């Protein structure tokens, strides 16, 4: 009974994934005969490609920022909204709302908000008498990546908050009652009960957010468009692979880039597990 799923998976998931390894050893435009170049794509990427290093740096910075802020905010709002009342449920529904929008729609909305001339953000800063805060958010090399990271956090914090709430509601109430009897402050309760008990959820949230941040492709395509930002400042792995494949028709080189993309993703997830699960086991 698993046959249809298995056939699709083998033919269009596993087989291409293995084929990708072979493609990565070629110099190839996908049309003419491929030329076998061994590991030269990999060595080229590592020794002779500034854009690759810029992309790697951007991707790590972007993922790091999004994971830190999205996880922290999701946990904060989950703690604030963990009890089921009319107000908290209404707020949860509102916070979750951006998740159902398409990333193209979200990108368009923020394209307007960030617009240097007409955007609501600059209008806001000018109207409260802080015109120096009115920047060219997406058009400047220094702010474009942060602007997109902010949008990404806006987009998915509500979703991760709900994951946290599900986790927090499973913490036994007795633990809090005991802490209160001992006279523990709210902050103490958080550090001694909530945080350690929610650590498994934190790991799930961080892993999920990391994968999500690697998929910010859509936002970048809409918000900083085909140039991947001023001076490639918003180039991340998925946009890099896409442009290498589509604009330059270098299939082998793009395949090698995807391998580095997956390695980076695995490395980040592994580091998170190491950094947090150690403390959890103690």
């Amino acid at each position, binding site marked *: 009974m698993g046959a249809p*799923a298995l056939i699709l998976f083998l033919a269009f998931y596993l087989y291409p994934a293995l084929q990708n390894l072979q493609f990565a050893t070629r110099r190839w435009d996908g049309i003419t005969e491929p030329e076998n170049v061994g590991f030269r794509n990999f060595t080229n990427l590592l020794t002779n490609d500034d854009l690759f290093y810029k992309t790697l740096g951007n991707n790590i910075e972007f993922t790091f920022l999004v994971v830190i802020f999205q996880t922290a905010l999701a946990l*904060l709002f989950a703690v604030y909204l963990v009890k089921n009342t009319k107000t908290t449920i209404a707020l949860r529904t509102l916070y979750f709302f951006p998740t159902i929008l398409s990333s193209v729609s979200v990108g*368009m909305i923020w394209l307007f908000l960030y617009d240097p001339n007409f955007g609501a953000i600059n209008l806001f800063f000018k109207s409260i008498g802080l015109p120096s805060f009115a920047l060219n958010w997406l058009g400047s090399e220094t702010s474009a990546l942060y602007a997109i990271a902010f949008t990404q956090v806006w987009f998915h914090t509500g979703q991760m908050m709900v994951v946290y709430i599900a986790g927090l509601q499973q913490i036994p109430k007795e633990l809090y009652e005991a802490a209160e009897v001992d006279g523990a402050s709210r902050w103490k309760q958080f550090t001694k009960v909530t945080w350690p008990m929610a650590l498994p959820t934190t790991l799930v949230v961080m892993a999920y957010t990391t994968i999500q941040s690697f998929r910010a492709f859509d936002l970048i395509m809409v918000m900083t468009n085909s140039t991947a930002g001023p001076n490639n400042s918003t180039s991340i792995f998925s946009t890099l692979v896409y442009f290498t494949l589509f604009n330059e028709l270098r299939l082998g080189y793009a395949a090698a880039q995807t391998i580095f993309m997956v390695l980076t993703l695995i490395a980040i997830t592994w580091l998170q597990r190491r950094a947090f699960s150690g403390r959890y086991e103690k």
Partner: protein
Amino acid sequence: MIFKSTRIFALLTFAALILVPSLIVVLGSFKTDAEVYNKPLSLPENWNFDNYRRLLSESDLDVAFRNSIMVTVTSVALTLLFASMASFAIARMITISGKVLATLFAFGLAIPAQINLVPVYYMFQKLGLTNSFIGLIIINVTTTLPISIFILTAFFREISKDMYEASEVDGASPLRVYRSIALPLSRPAMGATSIFLFVINWNDLLWPLLLIQQPEKKTLPLAMLAYRGEYFVSFSMLFTAVMVASLPMVIMYLFMQRSFIAGLTAGAVKG
């Protein structure tokens, strides 16, 4: 006291961060550009549907809307069917084959489908599956199978063994047990998974961008991206497009908040 006031401040700030942009979009779709730029939060001077009429007559978004419905509904239906069958097999077959299946799909869960951008692009061109709804549906179903199987297997395992065994004693075939026991009992899980799949497929940009070039085959996010290129100077028109593209989801969300929230976090919570 400090806890209370920071709590209220933080909650209200984030609420405003979501409400204000949403209002700007809703109101903006009824405004002229000048009104959007000067007074983004004021009510439109004339409530009319001019932008919507212009959108319908000038753009291909209506075609893209139909394409998206077709591709999304077919993809979701096929994924649910194949994933539930495979999950049933995994949950019921304690034999080697069940374990092999589970391991294979777990591998798919760990490795993001993006790694296949290059080979899929090449393979689909050779098979004539670019600019084709069938190609897009194949890739939609394949990339969402691992997560769907992951969610559904957990639910099929929760159905008590006695239920299965009783019917097997009665001589029912696995297909019968699947149809008359597993499926009806897992309706909530199937509902949650289908919402999850619906949102993912409806909103996906990456694969259509890779596989579809012909304008008449474009899905909604893809057509929106092209539209953004044409109308980048007119935010009132962009907002109108955002409204049209988001409305089906928003309406469903308003009526089925609980199922939406459950569905869109099922993958993460079950993990």
